[in-house]
């Protein structure tokens, strides 16, 4: 869970702090800094949530607290 929060903070704030430097790199024809804010972080959020739902469920099962 703390790992999730760390990832969240990174994709929400961390990476955008470096937008000016990242904009000098091109990715799929986009400046990378712009791309991260427009799409990259969003994709990361979606993947994180599906993974979180899956992983948390596995933890629940392991400790026998999952719903039947």
């Amino acid at each position, binding site marked *: *869970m703390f790992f999730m*929060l760390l990832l969240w903070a990174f994709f929400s704030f961390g990476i955008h702090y470096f937008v000016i430097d990242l904009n000098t790199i091109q990715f*799929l024809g986009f400046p990378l*800094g*712009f*791309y991260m804010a*427009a*799409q990259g972080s*969003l994709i990361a959020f979606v993947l994180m949530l599906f993974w979180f739902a899956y992983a948390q469920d596995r933890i*629940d099962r392991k400790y026998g607290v999952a719903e039947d």
Partner: protein
Amino acid sequence: MSTPVSDKGSGDFVANLGKIYGFYTGGFFGFVLLLAVLEQVGVPNYIIGYLFVFLTLAVYAFIGIITRTQQVSEYYVAGRRVPAFYNGMATGADWMSAASFVGMAGTLFLLGYDGLAFVLGWTGGYVLVAIFVAPFLRKFGAYTVPDFLSKRFGGNLARFLGVIVLVCCSFTYVTAQIYGTGLIASRFLGMDFTIAVYVGLVGILLCAMLGGMRAVTWTQVAQYIVLIVAYLTPIIILSSQKYGLPIPQLTYGHAIADITAREQEMIAQGLATAAALKPHIQPFLTYDPLNYFGLIFCLMVGTASLPHILMRYFTTPSVREARVSVAWSLFFIFLLYFSAPAYAAFSKLEVYNTVIGRPLGDVRPWLLTYGQLGLIKICGVDAVSIDAIVTACQKIAGHAGVIRLQDFRIDTDVIVLSTPEIAGMPYVIAGLVAAGGLAAALSTADGLLLAIANALSHDVYYKMIDPRAPTTRRLIVARVLLVLVAILAAYTASTRPSDILAMVSWAFSLAAAGLFPALVLGIWWKRANSYGAVAGIITGFGLTLMYLVVTRYFPQFGVEFLGMTSNVNAVTRAPLVDLAKLAADPAVWNVSPVGAAHPLASKVGWFSVNNISSGLFGVPIGFLTIWIVSLLTPAPSQRMYDLLDSIRKPRGVAYLDEKPA
């Protein structure tokens, strides 16, 4: 299906969802194609507009009517039977308001990179929802957010404060939705704005009133399908036309490169001054980094505390489904949000290429259509006719008779609605976009009205005024309140309040500061008690509200008594207003002590924080207050400790589940 709906009947309904909505989506495509054919054979535009608006409204109303209900748990939480996938879709529609559908691409158009704060804030918040809040509230088994506050912190004071916060943020929000409906209806149906507002109201009521949460859920799924199709169609067409690939999210990189090239060109040709042009990809031109990240933070935390979103997760069958459902919600929201920057880029390119640099006598007709609604200005006047703009531009010294960037002002709400016309697409696409915008506004309005009415009927009436009220009376009270709140909101919208869009962004800060600390500490910190929560809600919410109201309406008071200073320009760091000079000039300083027109409005504050990010003060203060006050007062009972242990574990019965009466 008849009333009351039998368990078996709705079970069949849930089992056949895939088939029903698949059929519905196919039907919708067929309907769009049919209208396209009608347009080709010469049916006039306004009839196509009417068909789009009324037929989609009729479908929503039909769903609302067949899913009507008389059961309490169906009315408040859709019987807790909504599968994760569909709940995600409904949450997507609930979440994406007129502001997301109509306003977001426009904001990105105007602000470029800085506008992405909205995209980030409104998606990243769901990570917080999934980790901190939704699964635990689902396990708790409350009907409403104030319901949780009351059970967790004991007593009706916490409940009552929760209701106040909820009503404050939801009401401004719902007014903005009805305003959006009015805007779209008046543009596409040619109705008077005030009448259009009430037409929208009828549509909303038909869905929400009869079936409560159950009806709203299934209409929202239908509305999501309409709105996503409507949003993606124009940019897919544009993308294939320009770059030969129908995936706009990939191709708009080229559009951005073209925009950057065109920006240089316009400056070279004297069509734009460096001051008026904000390069699209350059960050921190409107918001400095503090405000940019502050805004992201407030929007995220606000997302995780808006009651109409949280209550959607009360409807899933289990805690596991609630978590999966948050992921699906974000996926469906993401589909629209990662397309919004593409929308902005394509329409910006179209405007730069087809509007800027054009002779005044040769402007495209769509400019005048929106100019007549007061949404496009050229040379400082509404672009109502060619004569009007020619006259206005001639008054500007040295004007060459072509539109320059600094002459052109477009309301951000127009971008999405007008892109099909800007790009010269058939009218049926414009009608489709209007139907989508309407779906977005209606679905959000439904969810918000339900949140308000549920809080008033369940929390205030049932729990605080008359705990022995029989089921039928509770549901009647809920419906009457829903209608009253809706009419009040429609009335407010019909007066065209000028500040309505600013207020929507405020709702996020208010919800964040008022509810987030109490919800998170209530779930995660067992020692948090009633005194702490009450104090935390009051100080967090109060401070944020105070900051908003003072900076917006009483800036002078803020400067004189609260030590506020002028905000600074994001690029040059120079103060926006010279306070010392103004204070010396009584003519300006004392013009009007109150009001949006004050020369200092929204230009003063602490540490140069915009009032849109005011949750930056309220959220930490709320947390701190709960922590300090809780430690100074007695600990909660052992029973509460046990309860909190149990909501961390998905297994077992929900604490508050009520047997259907």
